[in-house]
């Protein structure tokens, strides 16, 4: 069985930018939560997830994202998402999670929002 989710991480100040590739489901959701927990234990308080290469997501993957959002809030940070495929955006809409998450069209838009908050 091949690796179903690849997570690439880079850091910009206190923001970790995660690029997810593959399936976000029960097993990979658990791995994602673990990875974010390690980042938040360092100097990271906010997380951005670029979902452009997420091929599949189900309610377990959504649950992992809700968990990450709660963890970032505990660190007084934010979780932002960007580049959702139409199909993925629809799942967020159906579950009404699009009202809960900060979703941006592009990663650049999301990162600009962090910079805008920083200069206020």
């Amino acid at each position, binding site marked *: 069985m091949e690796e179903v989710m690849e997570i690439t991480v880079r850091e910009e100040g206190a923001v970790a930018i995660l690029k997810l590739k593959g399936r976000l*489901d*029960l097993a990979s959701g*658990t791995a994602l939560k673990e990875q974010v927990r390690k980042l938040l234990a360092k100097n990271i308080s906010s997380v951005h997830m670029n979902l452009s290469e997420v091929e599949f997501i189900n309610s377990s993957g959504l649950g992992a994202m809700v968990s990450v959002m709660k963890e970032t809030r505990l660190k007084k940070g934010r979780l932002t998402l960007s580049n959702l495929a139409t199909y993925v955006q629809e799942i967020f809409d159906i579950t009404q999670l699009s009202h809960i998450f900060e979703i941006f069209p592009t990663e650049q838009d999301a990162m600009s929002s962090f910079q805008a908050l920083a200069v206020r």
Partner: protein
Amino acid sequence: MATYKYFYSSAPEAEEQMLDDLFRVLKEHDLSEEDTNKFTLAVSEAFINALVHGNKQNSQKKIEVKLDLDEETLSAEIIDEGKEGLKQIWSRIEPPPLSESGRGIDLIRHYATTSQFTQTPSGGLKVTLSLARQVKQNISS
């Protein structure tokens, strides 16, 4: 009509095995991307329900997945070996906004054309769902 039947243990990695099998079968049948996405999500949600809530990730318990595919309809049965699964379905409440679970049944109902929840003689839950296939557009002139 093409029929496929699989049995999975209720170990956490079973979901990945099931998705690998499902994607492979759907690819063989040249489905549209939209049909693939909808059907995969609905089956996946029923499977996770069986794995986590039905069999409670007890690797001794099995999950049966049966797929029937024809030109018009994609159908699936997902059967677990849990207890009182049907009671859990009927007594479920809408999850609070920040809940990390509880959205699967709503996704099945949204994406499947039909869905039915019944109890097996041994008390497990059987989810029967179907999706009416899109008519593929013929783009040749």
